[in-house]
């Protein structure tokens, strides 16, 4: 693999020699160097220009209604209501289907004749590396800072309920996917919204919803799956380098954007492939060390749990009290596991199966791994640090705060954490570039030229993400995410009866032995 990569790069440079690109690159390099000396203030300029835009978008999407002294954003209510509804409507599929999900992912039901096709495990793994991102490390810290320890409790509850939402959207993703003549498949909310509504006799509305979603995911891909990721990766890099990158966000941004560009436009797939392979191990490595830190502080765990439970129901010191903590927990959970956003169903829809329900069941594991496991242990690590030493992180926020919590036990940890953060961010960006692209091609067709326009826009936002401060980034990203939820969840309500019918029929056939295990 390394050999082919080197060969590619060699070819690339010989090509460069032939064209005048080389001169251009050299000039560009010189420009960057001179800019570094002259204008370290570029970051500030971009920052002050974007902040008001972020605020405006935030204000529109996060229309808030005051409830018992807390400000409840309507969209959060919309998401939670959906998750609760699907949990009850599907008869607690998130509990009932769990064991079956593991057995499907292990391949117990895989037909030997379909070997070589995308397996349940592969679809799940790809979707998980899209969702396991900075949200799991930094997002949890944000939740705890703003919503107090109680936000953790609601984060877990939201993860649990989100499993049902995921089940519905991933089942639909497979059921209504589009298979093209050349054999490649595209699926996701834009397709199930269009075809599902048209199945229910609402063709015009389905078309509208499909397009609405496609626009949403295209714009949303620039926030949650892009700017937030590159921003937090930069913050952690700057953090471990002792502030050497202060004011150089734009330079880090350009480098990151160049790497993303080389993968999604240049087609250097090896980079993406390597990342996809390292990410699961990084996630394991992260969890392992988190558990070690928790064990080293096992004495403080009862207090941490008391704080979490107390905070969840009293909301001490949190704006809006318990409800405030709840809102923040839910908000960050969705941001991390993407249940209700519909993005994961794009990745899941590539699986090879005759039973769409099976992929829905497997997708239950995704919020479980992402939120209930990884987010919870991050929260516990932060919690033990807070109990042992309140105010341990100083003014650090997001990833930097999580990093400080680990640093208390392992002084060297911020460095591998920066590496992990960079990889998580990168793999999430690659996945989301694809999700956004699917929204784009849904609207503008599969023309290569058009796709490249999208990819260049995407890369520009990667660079921008490193420059803007966390506050405005979170506002924009949150706002965009919830913009996508509106059409998706509305569609899920309408199509849920179809899923329920298939679910009942499927489990009846598993019970009767008609669907048999191969292993």
């Amino acid at each position, binding site marked *: 693999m390394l050999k082919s990569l080197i060969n590619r790069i060699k070819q690339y440079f010989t090509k460069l020699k032939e064209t005048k690109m080389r001169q251009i690159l050299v000039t560009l390099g010189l420009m960057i160097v001179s800019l570094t000396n002259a204008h370290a203030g570029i970051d500030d300029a971009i920052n002050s220009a974007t902040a008001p835009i972020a605020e405006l978008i935030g204000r529109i999407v996060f229309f808030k209604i005051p409830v018992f002294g807390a400000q409840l954003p309507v969209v959060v209510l919309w998401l939670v209501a959906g998750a609760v509804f699907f949990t009850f409507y599907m008869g607690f599929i998130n509990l009932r289907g769990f064991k079956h999900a593991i057995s499907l992912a292990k*391949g117990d039901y*895989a037909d*030997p004749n379909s*070997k*070589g*096709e*995308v*397996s349940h*495990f*592969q*679809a799940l*793994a*790809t979707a998980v*590396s*899209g969702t396991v991102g900075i949200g799991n490390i930094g997002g949890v810290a944000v939740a705890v800072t703003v919503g107090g320890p109680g936000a953790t409790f609601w984060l877990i509850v939201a993860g649990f309920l989100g499993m049902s939402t995921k089940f519905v959207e991933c089942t639909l993703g497979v059921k209504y996917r589009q298979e093209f003549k*050349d*054999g*490649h*498949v*595209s699926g996701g909310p834009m397709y199930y919204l269009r075809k599902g509504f048209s199945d229910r006799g609402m063709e015009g509305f389905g078309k509208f919803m499909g397009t609405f979603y496609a626009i949403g995911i295209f714009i949303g891909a620039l926030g949650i799956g892009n700017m937030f990721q590159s921003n937090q990766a930069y913050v952690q890099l700057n953090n471990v380098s002792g502030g050497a990158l202060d004011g150089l966000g734009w330079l880090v941004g350009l480098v990151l954007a160049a790497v993303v560009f080389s993968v999604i436009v240049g087609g250097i*797939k090896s980079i*993406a*492939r390597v990342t*996809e*392979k390292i*990410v*699961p191990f990084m996630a394991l490595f992260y969890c392992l060390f988190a558990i070690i830190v928790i064990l080293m502080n096992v004495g403080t765990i009862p207090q941490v749990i008391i704080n979490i439970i107390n905070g969840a129901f009293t909301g001490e010191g949190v704006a809006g009290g318990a409800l405030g903590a709840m809102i923040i927990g839910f908000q960050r959970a969705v941001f991390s596991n993407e249940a209700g956003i519909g993005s994961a169903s*794009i*990745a899941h829809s*590539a*699986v*090879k199966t005759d039973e769409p329900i099976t992929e829905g069941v497997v997708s239950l594991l995704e919020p479980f791994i992402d939120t209930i496991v990884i987010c919870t242990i991050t929260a516990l690590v932060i919690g033990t640090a807070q109990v042992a030493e309140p105010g341990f992180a100083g003014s650090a926020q997001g990833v930097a705060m999580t990093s400080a919590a680990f640093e208390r036990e392992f002084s060297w940890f911020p460095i591998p954490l920066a590496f992990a953060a960079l990889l998580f961010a990168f793999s999430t960006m*690659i*996945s989301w570039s*694809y*999700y956004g692209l699917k929204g784009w091609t849904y609207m503008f067709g599969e023309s290569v030229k058009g796709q490249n326009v999208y990819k260049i826009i995407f890369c520009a936002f990667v660079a921008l993400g490193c420059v803007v401060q966390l506050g405005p980034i979170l506002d924009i990203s949150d706002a965009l995410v919830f913009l996508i939820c509106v059409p998706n969840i509305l569609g899920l309500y309408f199509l849920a009866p179809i899923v329920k019918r298939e679910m009942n029929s499927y489990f009846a056939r598993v019970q009767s032995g008609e669907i048999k295990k191969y292993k």
Partner: protein
Amino acid sequence: MSDTILVALDGSEGGKRALSVAVDHARLTESSLLLAYVIDWSPYSFHTPEELSERHSRRESEIQRANDSVLHPEASALADSGIQVDTVVRHGKIAETLVELSEEHNTSQIYIGKLGESRMRSMIFGSVTAALVQTSSVPVTVVP
């Protein structure tokens, strides 16, 4: 009842040698041949979303390539030999899949060419041939 002999082919010289030994054997014992091409694949590997969306068409073309460049030419070369020849392509772990095929088709023997795996590779990943010899329920002939 005539026996079936499984021959593992992969387009290499070793595979060809294994086939020619197997052909002699089949003539003597009036057995039929099953030529198998296993494409190394694991259901637990990781891919990007883009690779997943193209997986189905890539699988088709992998199977077609195995058929067109290895299995069909070999089978048609044996057309006049009077031996009954069948072919099969399957994805999976090589040794494991050969054993699986052997059991499914009830074959009496397996022929495989020595793969020429480097010592380093065998040390790290284990040798395919060794794994096959150890897990097979029928005699395995390794042709050098």
